[in-house]
């Protein structure tokens, strides 16, 4: 394994690796054999997939994620627990901002410096699979006897790209309906009975308005304005894309209805116009507004404000059909430039172990993807999370198509323009759909190889 540079190793990847000072790795890559996971090969490794444990020599694994919030320490304690139970596997967790992480991971993998285990949002899985940043793990699913029956179907199916499984769901984080009880009470509304349909919601907003409260602030930003409008679009029976993402559907009637409902909050005086990022969530915490549609991660933030009287419910049904936006954290195994059967097995053991610990994880403010955990009495005892967890079958994700995020930027732009009043909802949506269609076509061409 001390082979110095061989001519064949001086490839572009080799050059990149050397340039970050990983010459040794290149040497190893040159004499690696029987590769279970050569970059670009995309072939599933063989073996037990982690079901039979790991009894080889001691290995060190690194685990990357973006849990920079209150969820970080909880994941960290899980890792510590795993290390305690597995003396021959040492997992080191590395947490960075999601944006940095997504930018860094592909280069790290190319340079042979990538982690053995990582977390990815469900809508990034397909892109990273297409770019060979992560490897297929059908073997893990098979070996661990994981099947759709064990998981909520939506996040489970979302891990499949090109008929291969690339990720194992850890959790889902849906949007929920937060209501400020003190504000509702002051306006004469029953704080224990938040409005759950379109009529009740409208009436409640009018009551609040008559007491001088702008009841639901409409933010023009992705968090959580464009997420809210996505939920509304599904409630009105629409979709963003066709299932194969060959066409954009958001400019159809349901999309226009959804965005119009949202922009009408401003028009009808239930929200100030032109607010900046997070102003809606801050206004909710300050008691300036009564309602806020926000992610499940908001539970822990609100809990920190002891004086705040608030409740959370599933999203009200505005459009006629129960539906909510959700994201999902999924486990992935980044492609290894230097195949190492021991590490490969150990990583799978970790994945299997941690996937069974998702109750602990629920305390970080998430809904476990695994049915056995989500339906357990312990999870139901986490009242707030369980309330949002009940939406599990009404959740929607983006189609698992490489580069789908590129097209979604156009959707976010449309919501931004319409809420800020620079374009009418229908025009904003159809202009954005035109641009997104071109992006989808370009991506199809780019990733088909």
């Amino acid at each position, binding site marked *: 394994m001390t082979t110095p540079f061989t001519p064949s190793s001086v490839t572009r990847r080799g050059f990149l690796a050397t340039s970050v000072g990983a010459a040794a790795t290149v040497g190893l890559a040159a004499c690696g054999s029987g590769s279970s996971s050569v970059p670009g090969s995309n072939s599933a490794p063989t073996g037990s997939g982690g079901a039979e444990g790991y009894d080889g020599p001691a290995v060190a694994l690194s685990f990357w994620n973006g849990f920079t919030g209150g969820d970080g320490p909880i994941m960290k304690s899980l890792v510590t627990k795993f290390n305690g139970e597995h003396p021959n596997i040492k997992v080191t967790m590395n947490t960075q901002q999601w944006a940095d992480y997504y930018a860094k991971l592909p280069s790290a993998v190319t340079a042979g410096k990538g982690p053995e285990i990582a977390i990815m949002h469900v809508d990034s899985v397909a892109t990273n699979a297409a770019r060979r940043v992560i490897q297929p793990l059908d073997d893990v699913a098979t070996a661990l006897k994981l099947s759709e029956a064990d998981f909520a179907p939506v996040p489970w199916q979302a891990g499949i790209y090109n008929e291969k499984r690339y990720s194992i769901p850890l959790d889902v984080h849906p949007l929920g309906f937060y209501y400020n009880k003190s504000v509702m009470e002051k306006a004469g509304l029953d704080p224990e009975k938040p409005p759950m349909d379109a009529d009740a919601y409208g009436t409640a907003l009018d009551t609040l308005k008559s007491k001088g409260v702008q009841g639901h602030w409409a933010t023009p930003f992705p968090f959580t304005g464009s997420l809210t409008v996505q939920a509304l679009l599904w409630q009105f029976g629409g979709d963003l894309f066709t299932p194969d993402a060959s066409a954009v559907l958001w400019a159809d009637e349901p999309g226009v209805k959804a965005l119009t409902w949202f922009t009408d909050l401003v028009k009808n005086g239930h929200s100030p116009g032109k607010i900046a990022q997070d102003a809606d969530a801050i206004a909710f915490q300050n008691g300036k507004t009564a309602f806020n549609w926000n992610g499940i991660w908001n539970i822990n933030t609100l809990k920190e404000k002891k004086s705040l009287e608030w409740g959370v419910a599933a999203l009200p049904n505005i459009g006629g059909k129960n539906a909510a936006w959700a994201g999902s954290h999924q486990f992935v195994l980044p492609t290894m430039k230097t195949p190492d059967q021991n590490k490969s097995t150990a990583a799978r053991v970790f994945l299997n172990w941690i996937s069974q610990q998702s109750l602990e994880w629920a305390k970080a403010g998430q809904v476990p993807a695994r049915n056995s955990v989500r339906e357990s009495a312990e999870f139901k005892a986490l009242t707030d999370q369980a309330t949002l967890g009940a939406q599990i079958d009404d959740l929607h994700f983006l189609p698992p198509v490489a580069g789908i995020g590129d097209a979604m930027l156009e959707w976010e732009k449309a919501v931004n323009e319409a809420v800020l009043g620079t374009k009418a909802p229908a025009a904003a949506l159809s202009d954005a759909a035109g641009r997104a269609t071109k992006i989808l076509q370009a991506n199809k061409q*780019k990733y088909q190889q």
Partner: protein
Amino acid sequence: MAAVIMPASAGTSPKGGKDLRYGGVHGSRVAPYLFLLPYLVLFLGFVILPALFGLWMSLHNWDFLLPGKPFVGLDNYTALFDSQSVQFEPFWHGMRATAIFTVASVPFLISIPLLLAVLLNRKFPGRTFFRAVFFAPYVLGVAVIGLMWRYLLDPSFGAVNGLLGVFGIPPVNWITEESWAWVSLVLVTIWWTIGFNAIIYLAGLGDISAEQYEAAELDGASMWQQFRYVTVPGLRPVMVFVITTTILASANMFGQSYLITQGGPGDKTRTAIMEITERGLSQYRMGEASAMSYVLALFLAVIALANFYLTRERP
């Protein structure tokens, strides 16, 4: 940058350099080149090679992780001039935003520091303190000032609107309305970078000898005439440098709108550099992004040349 600095220093370099080069100093002819070598290596490694590599990339559909990087010739360039292409609208919207910001910010970034430098060049108690005060914001990184102003300018909860409210002024949508967003971005940039140009001007002012002002005064020149006929011509080489670097810096604006307005409302304050970053590093279309960079660079080169031409020393 080399091209930028050269003419500025050319004015002050000693004449008849040929005599000085070897006269009296018996060194190796190789020595000067050895001194230049370290920089040359860095320049080649980090400027010339990446630039050539970028040119090569721009002729391909380039994603460093995909096995195929098909050669597409000049397609990435022609697409920028084809209104039906994916990148046409975002690119030219970005160029428009960059142009608006440059035109709106450069006059202020050149004139205000000049006035400031003239003021700070006078002798008065606390002069050093004020020089430090005006320079201070420049030492902060763009992430710091961006985040700070993002909070200060928040239309609903920002301190600026809070302060205006005390005087009964209704809240201003500093970052969510196009016209105000530009005002904010320009004001923040002026506040942030004013000290840098002022320091350059101050150095230039120090080079204008006091005798010239004395002579002008004896001839009965007013303060304004002294400024117009002594200060401004004396600062010409410095001015060329300041104008060129300021235009380039404004045309490269990224952090302020990335952090403060997030390119919004819509894509109105999304600059060309933001578009290039998004396309190259988030969508991994590095070929297209490189082509955009080259077109932007071409524009900047033309502007820099025009600047040299317009501010050249007239006989």
